[in-house]
């Protein structure tokens, strides 16, 4: 089953995609790594960040890995490059 989620891009990832946000349609049981690979397919420049990025799903950090996300329509996913707050 597919769901439509919004993807937010920050910092370097926003520069690489040229976007702050977009909506995508993906299977609801996709893994975080598969979701990242889907984003890389849409925006090949993102591949540079693969080892230095995590995702945030519904505002909780998720590392890139095999664990299945359970995405629902309207969920917010964010691409999170290394932090530099403070």
């Amino acid at each position, binding site marked *: 089953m597919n769901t439509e989620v919004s993807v937010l891009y920050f910092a370097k990832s926003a520069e690489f995609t040229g976007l702050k946000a977009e909506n995508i349609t993906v299977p609801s049981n996709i893994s975080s790594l598969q979701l990242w690979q889907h984003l890389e397919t849409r925006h090949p420049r993102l591949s540079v960040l693969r080892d*230095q990025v995590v995702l945030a799903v519904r505002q909780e950090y998720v590392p890139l890995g095999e664990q299945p996300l359970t995405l629902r329509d309207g969920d917010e996913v964010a691409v999170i490059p290394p*932090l*530099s*707050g*403070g």
Partner: protein
Amino acid sequence: MAADGGQDLIILTTDKLSADSVSQSVTCPSCGAVSLFIGTTRDNFEGKKVIRLEYEAYSPMAESELRKICSEIRTKWPSVRRINIQHRLGVVPITEASVIIGISSPHRSDSLEAVKYCINTLKATVPIWKKEIYESGEPCWKENKECLWADAGKDPKQS
């Protein structure tokens, strides 16, 4: 943007921050100590002259992560009374404050330790990013070594 969870005040703003204002907001009659941390912007990095910084945030999540930090502080140091965390977003000129943390407690040891914990945890977990703009050369998105997924945070044995 401000959110007040009782005794925790968290503010993300493009306005200039004020240490006096933070200090006054956490001062309370039962507290003998107010501890402040002010993070300011340096004018140099590896010999390059920095002319300004630009901060970007995933604001709703930055607020929720800061709330988690406040909650952890209150668990570790139950005597802490008030917490005020302010982070500036957008352009921050050199020498101006990018973050101010104020914490009050009856005795000094708890607020001092809590402030240290707060800034260290903020740097590791709060989704805010800083870009350094140099006098010459390309701007650079900084990476906190505290962040687990930054290059510097990786085990050097791994490649």
